[in-house]
């Protein structure tokens, strides 16, 4: 914007102020501040006044719906089946009613996407994954869990230790209602301590396996261990990173 020195600058008959440059730089500075502190401001407002006010701000409290296939697999609640197989004592196929009859876990936690958007205070309800694993009986030699989706595209994985975390659930209720189709209903995975791509939608199968199989997003470059704090230390080994 150093344009005063241009030879063909117009004659300035009056005192002028380069308002353009000032407004331009001011708004650039605002944008930079927003990038640096927008997240903190949203979190502060959300904590101080509840998610309602945080939700009024653009960017907060809004799911961006992603689908690998560009389509949502349609499964009715009656037809829904969750097939648990692999290195288990009792391979079992659960209906939605089966899952709902098991001990219920519910909590309120944020959904954090790896690309940056975050929805605070989402209510989740379902069955702990560890509960299902206990029900079917994990064989010795099992190391990891692989997850399949009704979209026949997405896959995910967790180590056996990760699968036993108390906030890793097979969710059938979300935001106070049955999980909707765009959110991965009737049943999806929710892995609270990891980025959203680990919370596979339209969960169709759980396979207990002897090796961590990197899922769809991991094959596309995301960390196998999608910890929200980014750690991949000795307690959070990331077998997929090379």
């Amino acid at each position: 914007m150093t344009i005063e020195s241009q030879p063909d600058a117009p004659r300035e008959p009056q005192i002028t102020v380069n308002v353009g440059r000032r407004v331009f730089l001011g708004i650039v500075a605002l944008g930079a501040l927003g990038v640096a502190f927008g997240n903190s401001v949203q979190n502060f407002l959300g904590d101080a006044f509840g998610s309602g006010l945080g939700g009024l701000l653009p960017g907060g409290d809004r799911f961006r719906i992603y689908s690998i296939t560009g389509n949502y697999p349609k499964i009715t609640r009656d037809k829904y089946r969750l097939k648990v197989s692999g290195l288990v004592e009792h391979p079992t196929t659960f209906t939605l009613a089966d899952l709902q009859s098991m001990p219920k876990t519910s909590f309120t936690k944020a959904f954090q996407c790896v690309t940056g958007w975050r929805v605070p205070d989402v209510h989740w309800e379902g069955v702990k994954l560890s509960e299902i694993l206990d029900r079917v009986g994990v064989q010795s030699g099992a190391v990891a869990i692989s997850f399949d989706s009704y979209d026949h595209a997405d896959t995910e994985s967790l180590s056996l230790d990760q699968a036993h975390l108390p906030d890793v659930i097979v969710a059938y209720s979300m935001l106070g209602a049955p999980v909707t189709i765009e959110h991965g209903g009737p049943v999806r995975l929710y892995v609270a301590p990891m980025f959203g791509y680990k919370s596979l939608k339209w969960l169709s199968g759980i396979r207990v396996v002897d090796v961590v199989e990197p899922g769809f997003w991991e094959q596309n470059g995301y960390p196998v261990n999608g910890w929200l704090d980014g750690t991949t230390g000795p307690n959070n080994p990331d077998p997929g990173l090379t």
Partner: protein
Amino acid sequence: MSLTQAPAKSLRVLRFDRVQRGAHWANALLFFSLMFTAIPLYFGSFFGVVFPRHLIEMIHLWSGLALPLPIIISLIGPWGRAMRHDVRRINYWTREEIHWMRTLGKSTLEADKFNPGQKLNAIFVGVSILVMLVTGAMLQWFRIFPVPWRSGATFVHDVFAWAVFFVVIGHIVMALTHRDALRSIFKGWVSRSWAERYAARWIQEEPSGELKH
């Protein structure tokens, strides 16, 4: 003066040259592409079951990356003289113009080629292109940025998207209600009488020879 009463050629004044008109319409096309593709991306959960999200994402991404090009190309090179001239006009404000803007147009003003409201619109749209480009790039190539920055970039991209949307709607409303000014972005010229009334300082400053079509 209305569209149907076009003045004789000798009474026409060039307001936007071909380069500026081309840049404007290329810019407008990309803006519309971005706004239309933004709707399903932003309101995805309301959009029912089927839409080709990946294709829409790609259109949005490439439109965004292309957005600065019409302005940059129209500014550089020997063909960009009128555009550079106008950028300077938009940058420099007189005390009277600042006062006019502060009083929201209630003070009297011998207007430049663009009035302060038009200048502010141009500045805002220009800076928004930069802000949207940078934050959009952060969302697309997010891996190198810390997570709070990604969230902040999402926030800024959303806020500016809303702001730009309303500014562009305002721009279109103003254009449709000011037919003589509107004609100049299609045909390039305004009538001299229009310019004397709405852009008096411009008409006085520019050597008249340059203004002839």
